[in-house]
């Protein structure tokens, strides 16, 4: 391992984080954006380096400050963290590249340095959660990423974002507090904060009440932050009223990072030690996952604002991810992790296309978008590709994860058939809600005839198309995400049968 490789886990967090205060001071026009993009691309490069290392079997462990764990804070990167790091840094870079024009409209120039500084803090906060192997350290970075995402969500011109953010803030704070209570209880019983050490030491006290309560608090708190149904109420409005580029960034990755922590805790720390946790985990989360898929998709069917429609679709997609995990099997878990990646691709692209659309259409209700494809064929074509991927049409990324999800459900015995039915019904509903948008955009006559509406800026379109083509690429060349997901699932399940 070269010295640079050795420091990658620390640099993954430190590079964007230390650039954030610098960006806050960059006054000249456009410079803050450029610096943020450079930092984000740098983080993406580091994430790719870490992924390569993880794929070749290296395990990155980094003792912060040179203090060996559990006395100091340890960073640890394996395939699971590498997978989610790729999603986070990729989503940030693509949203920044495509989003400059859109963000220029949403945020005044004088306020941009602060906005982009907050963006970098979201990025470094999420990355900090993903590389950390210390329960309290995860909380610290959760605070950074949450606070900063409240800022960027409220960044736009739409004042309705403020009450939405307030709700997001209150719910997010409750979630984080529950997590902290859980950590406190575990610390009381084990005296350690390092996850690996916790896994060992929790074994002796596993049957005691504080640990059981801690497992409950941590699971509920993180489920709240991950917008697991019925704790999703903060999500739709926050996504709807956020600046479009921010929605594309956060919708692709923010809830997934909370799911990452949830899975890490439940599988690594609790599953191995708590008797019957496996069953409880499935019994608690599987019904919620099913409800999320059905209810989220059903609401999306009747929603008329396309951003909110896609936000409710996200609630349903979180359901698919949980559904795979709640099977507590290797196949189920890898399908779940694969869906994290593929959903990020599909939903990220959809929101990017919406952003391009919003460059020309100020109102994003379906009835205002009639015939928009005639003015903006390229944007809407990219939207169609990403929509197909969200539905899970063969040849797109979305198909792969749904296929794995169905095969994993088949292994689960009688309940599996019910789950397959749920996945199929959910996908059919996705066909309907995506079709509603496509029909309006492509087949209805434009309402305001005579007005000339141009296609979105070329630079923006190019990036949107890049993302759309990635949906097809990862639908055909599935090796990278599949290998990462399978490896991550295997390491999560560990010694479980």
């Amino acid at each position: 391992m070269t010295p640079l490789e050795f420091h990658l886990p620390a640099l993954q967090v430190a590079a964007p984080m230390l650039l954030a205060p610098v960006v806050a001071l960059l006054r000249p026009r456009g410079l803050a954006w450029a610096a943020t993009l450079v930092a984000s691309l740098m983080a993406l490069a580091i994430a790719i380096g870490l992924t390569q290392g993880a794929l070749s079997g290296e395990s990155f462990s980094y003792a912060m400050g040179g203090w060996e764990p559990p006395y100091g804070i340890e960073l640890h990167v394996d395939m699971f963290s590498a997978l989610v790091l790729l999603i986070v840094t990729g989503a940030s870079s693509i949203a920044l590249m495509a989003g400059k024009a859109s963000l220029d409209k949403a945020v005044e120039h004088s306020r941009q340095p602060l906005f982009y500084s907050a963006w970098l803090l979201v990025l470094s906060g999420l990355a900090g959660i993903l590389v950390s192997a210390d329960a309290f350290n995860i909380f610290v970075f959760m605070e950074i990423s949450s606070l900063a995402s409240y800022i960027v969500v409220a960044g736009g011109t739409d004042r309705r974002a403020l009450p939405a953010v307030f709700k997001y803030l209150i719910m997010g704070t409750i979630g984080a507090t529950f997590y902290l209570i859980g950590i406190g209880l575990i610390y009381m019983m084990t005296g350690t904060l390092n996850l690996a050490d916790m896994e060992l030491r929790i074994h002796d006290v596993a049957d005691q009440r504080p640990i059981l309560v801690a497992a409950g608090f941590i699971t509920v708190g993180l489920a709240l932050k991950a917008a697991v149904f019925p704790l999703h109420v903060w999500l739709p409005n926050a996504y709807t009223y956020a600046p479009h580029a921010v929605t594309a960034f956060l919708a692709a990755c923010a809830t997934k990072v909370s799911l990452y922590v949830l899975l890490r805790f439940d599988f690594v720390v609790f599953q191995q030690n708590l008797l019957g946790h496996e069953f409880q985990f499935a019994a608690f989360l599987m019904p919620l996952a099913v409800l999320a898929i059905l209810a989220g998709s059903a609401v999306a069917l009747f929603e008329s604002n396309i951003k909110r429609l896609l936000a409710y679709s996200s609630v349903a997609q979180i359901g698919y991810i949980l559904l795979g995990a709640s099977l507590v099997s290797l196949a189920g878990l890898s399908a779940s992790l694969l869906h994290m990646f593929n959903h990020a691709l599909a939903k990220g692209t959809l929101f990017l296309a919406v952003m391009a659309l919003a460059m020309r259409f100020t109102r994003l209700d379906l009835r205002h978008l009639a015939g928009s494809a005639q003015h903006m064929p390229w944007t809407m074509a990219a939207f169609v590709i990403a929509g197909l991927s969200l539905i899970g049409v063969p040849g797109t990324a979305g198909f792969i994860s749904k296929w794995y999800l169905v095969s994993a459900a088949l292994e689960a015995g009688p309940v599996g058939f019910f789950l397959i039915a749920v996945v199929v019904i959910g996908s059919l509903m996705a066909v309907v809600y995506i079709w509603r948008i496509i029909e309006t955009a492509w087949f209805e006559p434009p309402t305001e005839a005579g007005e000339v509406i141009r296609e979105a800026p070329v630079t923006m379109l190019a990036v949107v198309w890049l993302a759309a083509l990635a949906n097809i690429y990862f639908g055909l060349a599935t090796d990278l995400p599949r290998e990462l997901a399978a490896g991550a699932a295997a390491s999560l399940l560990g010694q479980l049968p």
Partner: protein
Amino acid sequence: MTVLFGVFLLALLVITAVAIVRTQNLFVAVMLLGIFSLLIALNFFILDAADVALTEAAVGAGISTVLFLGALALTYEHERMVTRHRALSVAVVVCATLVVLYATFDKPTFGDPNAPVHQHVAPWYLENEPKYIDIPNVVTAVLGSFRGYDTLGEVFVVFTAGIGVLFLLSARPTAPNSRRRAEDESSGIGLREDLIPRIVGRMLVPFILLFGLYVQFHGEYGPGGGFQAGALIAAAFILYALVEGEERTLEVLPKNALIALSSAGALLYGGVGLAGILLGSEFLDYSVLASNPITGQQMGIILIEAGVGMTVTGVLLLIFHAFAARDQV
């Protein structure tokens, strides 16, 4: 006796919390929040956590009360919106409380030396701290070095809060509030016309600053450090602003200087971390800063505490000015 006093304080804490939730008058709620923080600080103190107690007293009871009042000046004193879903909120709170109570049945007894927290990591810190860092206050050693990465994170939490408030309040208000402007013109600036507060306030400022610096640099020997010191120094400037008017404070420390100060503090901390890498060790390893590892650790802690103090001072003043300036738009 400690237990009895603790129970007494906790009972007061619960009463205060219920009162905060029940009152419709936001001014009363803010004052009660100050009392709440003071009670928590006392609790921390009788649990021998003097560092946390000092922080809670300075930040919770002191600065946040002022900031809340600043926010209150921009809105109304009475809660106007009726809380919806009250039953649901009460149910959630009751459930969470009962569950935590349930958890306490198996917890180690208070002050039990055999409790897991006293058996694993903590004794290692106590035993090895003189060997590696050698400063009298082990808490500072843990926060500054052993878990310095967490503290770096906390500094960035503070920084995020600062730019967040600045960003959100720098938005142009949708409708200028003419009522307030009229009020402002009629009243004098600050408390310049009130002789006694002005003189007492001006006399206090240098002493608060001096005490802030003492807390900043005494963190290695006793309770203190950058967070507390930052709050105290900010408090001195805020007091000056209250007495002499905000403009004069901004002359001393303009807004851009405050942003630079906050950023510089965070960067100083991060820079010390990077220096660890550049000098051939891990991020945030201070041992390599000097030829003698113990001296290096002590230098590192002084530097990062300075960074913490700068960021906390800068951010608290930024937030204060953001509220105060909003009033005059």
